[in-house]
């Protein structure tokens, strides 16, 4: 069984919008997969199903052998500890320093300070932010904030990292740097990476697996693929 499996997954939002229809997808451990597709095609929805922000209407979503679609609300946190999520808008806590932001998950798990410190420093080393640990998020550039967000996502050494347009707000140079950081995490930590993006240049440069979604349906899935712009017929 693959690390991630989606079998005949359907997702319709409460307002009646059908975001995903009959998605079938398998992703192996350690893979790096781009999810591309035009705005509103269902990329974020797919991500949300993986970390159980949303529930499927039909079908199964398996992550690391766990049927995420059947997970009880009270147990969702166990999944989230194994999944790091990175967003376009970072979602950092403005009143906490960089160090505190990265330590936040571990602190809330009740780990001891020594372990927290070690893990935070390890994560910081991977994303390269050493000099800014005492700064606050609003004192950082977008690229730096995104590094903090990535550090927070990997601080608990997750098996899966989900990135929803992580470079959406960054300029091309910063985007490349961020992509290198994530690529390094993928190869060095062995974490599976799923990244949705609109960034043609990045997709073409990285030469990874590319899954294209259109109107909630997988329309192409290429190994070492290129960015495609899918059009109806």
């Amino acid at each position: 069984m693959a690390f991630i499996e989606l079998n005949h997954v359907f997702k319709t939002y409460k307002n009646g919008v059908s975001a995903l229809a009959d998605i079938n997808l398998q992703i192996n451990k350690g893979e790096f997969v781009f999810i591309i597709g035009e705005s509103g095609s269902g990329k974020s929805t797919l991500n949300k199903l993986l970390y159980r922000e949303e529930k499927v209407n039909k079908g199964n979503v398996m992550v690391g052998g766990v049927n995420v679609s059947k997970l009880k609300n009270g147990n969702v946190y166990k999944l989230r500890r194994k999944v790091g999520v990175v967003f376009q808008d970072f979602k950092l806590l403005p009143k906490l320093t960089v160090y505190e932001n990265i330590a936040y998950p571990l602190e809330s798990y009740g780990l001891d300070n020594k372990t927290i410190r070690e893990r935070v420093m390890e994560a910081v080393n991977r994303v390269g932010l050493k000099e800014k640990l005492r700064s606050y998020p609003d004192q950082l550039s977008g690229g730096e904030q995104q590094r903090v967000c990535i550090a927070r996502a990997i601080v608990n050494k997750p098996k899966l990292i989900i990135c929803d347009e992580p470079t959406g707000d960054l300029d091309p140079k910063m985007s490349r740097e961020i992509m290198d950081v994530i690529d390094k995490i993928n190869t060095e930590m062995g974490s599976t990476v799923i990244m949705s993006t609109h960034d043609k240049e990045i997709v073409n440069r990285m030469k990874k697996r590319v899954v294209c979604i259109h109107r909630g349906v997988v329309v192409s899935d290429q190994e070492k693929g290129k960015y495609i712009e899918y059009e109806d017929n």
Partner: protein
Amino acid sequence: MRIIRIFTRGIRVAFKSVFRNLSLSLASISSTSITLVIVGLAILFTFNVNSITKHIEDVLTVIVFVDKNVTDEEINDLKTKINSNDNVNKETLEYRSQDYLKEQLSAKDDDLKKVFETLDTNPLQATFVFRVSDVKKIDETVKEIEQYDHVDYIKYGESLASKLVSMLEVIRNACVITVIALILVTIFLISNTIKITIFSRRHELSIMRLVGTSNTVIKLPFLFEGFIIGIIGSIIPVLLNIFGYTFFYDYVGGDLFSELIVLVNPNSIVYTTSLVLVLVGGLVGMFGSVNAVRRYLKI
């Protein structure tokens, strides 16, 4: 160890939150205080009503004067009848014959003794003496016994006393109802405070959920917050209760208006009352939190 860290973290976050939304917290704290002051009054009042009632029951004897010239058999019948009245405290029922009373009075008073010696007959009336189990029904009981054969008339302590007890009980019941209403209002206010805390921290909460913080850890600070508000709210009522009641007790000198109304000594009740106030404060706070967490913290 982990549990201790999670606990201390919860308390830390809760304290921060109480002081961050200070004006709101103060509103809840004062509401709790007002409620608890009245709870305290109600408790002290109840203690005193119970003690006064008991005291009155202890001292209030009913004296039934028996007709003269009745036979022993008739006396016995009457005794059985009185004994079978529900409100008569059986252990206290006593028969005092004419001779017995004469002896008693003579022993106490030499002049009276001389008077008795000059008389051929005994001028005294035999009596039955008893106390009632329920002072509030004393009037009824007396009326019933007056109807029995060979009862001449009945004397008993002011029926005012029994009216007083009834009145005190009405006041106490009103207190209890007020307290319940105030507790509900306080729970609502605290719940509202916590709701606003939840709302103002929703960004942080969504991040906590995202990074895999367990539901217990997410909820704990809110529960502590209500608890802290409740405990802080109980400080003033506890002080008022201890010093206020002691002062009042000393000021009136232990009894009110008459020796019939004896107040309970502060030392024997203020500490129990304080403990109850702190507990009620904490519980009310927790209830408020649980209510808010259940309704507004969707996890």
